[in-house]
């Protein structure tokens, strides 16, 4: 038996609905249809009255979720694509994110963002917005990279009293499989070393963890041993694990699929540069997508995002400094 990343997301929601009467699901086409990606398939039938199709109103969807959370419920909102959360931006960053600080009353909502690029999806169905939301105080931003994390981190997300942006990578949905959803179940706030090495540390998250591992694989034949750290959550960001790794390797490359200005890789590198300056034997590097919208054509797309090949290139630069 094998479980995919999207199975895990579906299972987590089923578990949550089963075990917590406060949980309900809200989103476009998530009811009978089971969602654009089938992440809620069968859940309406299994949990009648707990899964709701929403109008095409992202702003109101989040407003509704915050109101429900004030009333003690735990909504999980599915955005059809992360990119469409731009229309709900105000409700997320100003309504949900500020509510606890302003009123003392937390709003436990979970917003699922189908994120990241896939071939042929183009500028508006490919975005990675974790680095946007993480800039706002009051949000927890999760970026699971494994089947087990996809499951457990969604369970954890709903358990938080605070609003959570749960970035699930569309490329991993069916591509990523595991024997089961079991795993080490690290707590949120702890990064995972997915591969040990001694010559350099690659910090990555979400789909890029897998590209980084492939890059590491291919450098092995040249004798380079690359450590790969999966951040798991970008806010909170487990800088301690990153620093410990850099302490071992002396070299850092931060890899992200998002646009190159600012974002997760800048936060990682600038924190390591501050807190781990003396650990570094070479300038810390970043590798992000290019500074254009995500292109539609697969040939352009493949050259826009970091790939195992381009990560190798960055790593060779880092290793030979």
């Amino acid at each position: 038996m094998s479980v995919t990343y999207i199975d895990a997301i579906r299972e987590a929601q089923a578990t949550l609905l089963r075990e917590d009467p406060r949980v309900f699901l809200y989103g476009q086409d998530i009811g009978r249809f089971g969602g654009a990606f089938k992440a809620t398939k069968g859940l309406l039938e299994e949990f009648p009255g707990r899964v709701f199709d929403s109008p095409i109103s992202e702003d109101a969807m989040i407003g509704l979720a915050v109101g429900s959370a004030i009333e003690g419920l735990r909504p999980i909102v599915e955005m059809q694509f992360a990119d469409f959360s731009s229309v709900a931006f105000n409700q997320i960053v100003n309504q949900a994110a500020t509510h606890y600080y302003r009123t003392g009353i937390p709003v436990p909502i979970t917003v699922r963002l189908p994120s990241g690029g896939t071939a042929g999806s183009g500028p508006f169905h490919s975005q990675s917005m974790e680095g946007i939301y993480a800039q706002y105080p009051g949000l927890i931003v999760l970026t699971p990279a494994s089947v087990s994390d996809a499951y457990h981190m969604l369970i954890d997300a709903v358990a938080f009293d605070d609003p959570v942006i749960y970035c699930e990578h569309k490329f991993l949905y069916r591509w990523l499989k595991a024997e089961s959803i079991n795993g080490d179940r690290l707590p949120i706030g702890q990064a995972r070393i997915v591969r040990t090495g001694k010559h350099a540390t690659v910090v990555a998250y979400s789909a890029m963890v897998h590209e980084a591992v492939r890059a590491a694989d291919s450098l092995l034949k040249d004798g380079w041993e690359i450590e790969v750290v999966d951040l798991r959550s970008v806010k909170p960001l487990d800088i301690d694990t990153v620093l410990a790794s850099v302490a071992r390797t002396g070299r850092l490359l931060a890899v992200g699929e998002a646009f190159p200005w600012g974002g997760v890789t800048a936060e990682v590198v600038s924190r390591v540069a501050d807190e781990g300056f003396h650990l570094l034997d070479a300038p810390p590097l970043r590798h992000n997508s290019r500074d254009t919208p995500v292109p539609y054509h697969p040939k352009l797309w493949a050259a826009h995002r970091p790939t195992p090949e381009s990560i190798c290139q960055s790593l060779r630069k880092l290793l030979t400094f």
Partner: protein
Amino acid sequence: MEMQKPTLDGATNREFLRSVFHSMLRARILENKLSSLYKAGKIVGGVYLGRGQEAVSATLGTSLVQGRDVFAPLIRDQAGRTAFGEPLIDCTRTYLGSAQGPMRGRDGNIHRGRPDLGVPAMISHLGSQVSLVAGMLFAKRIKGTLDGTVGATCIGDGASSTGAFHEGLNLAAVEKLPMVVVIANNQFAYSTPNQRQFACADLVEKARGYGIGGLAVDGTDLLACASVITEAVRRARQGGGPQLVVAHLLRLSGHGEHDDASYVPDEIRKGHYGRDCLEVAMRQLVEHHHATVDEIYAWQDEVAEEVQRAVAQAQQEPGPDPYREVWSALSHTFSHPTAQ
């Protein structure tokens, strides 16, 4: 005087009208005080008043029951807050920066709220509260506690142009939630007149397009408000789905106290909606023998006293202490490291 909250179907009810009027009075006297405090430089941040909107707002607040209903006030709802049960001290503490106010210095003035008591704390972005109230009602339905409950919010003519208003109202209509949205059409959004804001003859004409109830009312006329707004609340409470009430009136101050509203043309000021709803209400109460002039004067004195006390108390209280402030926007504390 202790004002008792009258029964709900009391549009024509003496106690209801006296109660509404009393809240109008409390709001007006409190706001007059806030205005002088502002001019004396005693207030941090802006002061946005509800003068001219008291009949609408207080009627709405009085039609609702705290502990059961939801009331999401907006900029000009001091009267509705008072009517719904907000103690004056919550207001003075917030304006005067006491750390004991409901927002503890973290947010200010009209943004105050007590979401756990059914009073959401508004964010500035106009229109945002509509879907939030819908969400509170939606949750009550899921929990099985919706029956007989109403959620209400006020909003301005200007805010009717926001996407958030549209999405929220439509969603409420689709879910047939017991919701009352009152548009206080005070003819201006800041300086912008209705004709630069919308093109329909009356905003109430939007109701049909949402498939919800719609009622228009002269917002300067307490008796009209009492009959129309309670009717809207009644319909929502009895399962009639969302109700849009459009109240026509004029803002009797600037947008905020920094603004002299010189852009309001004289003919509007002197026109029908330029009349003071408080004076109209007082005349109506007296004419219908719901209260005597002497009684009202006595209320005025009591309220002035009460406002004085609330101001004095808040002024004595210290502001927030940045050294003891918990600088976290999350309720959760991560044992493991956190960003920043």
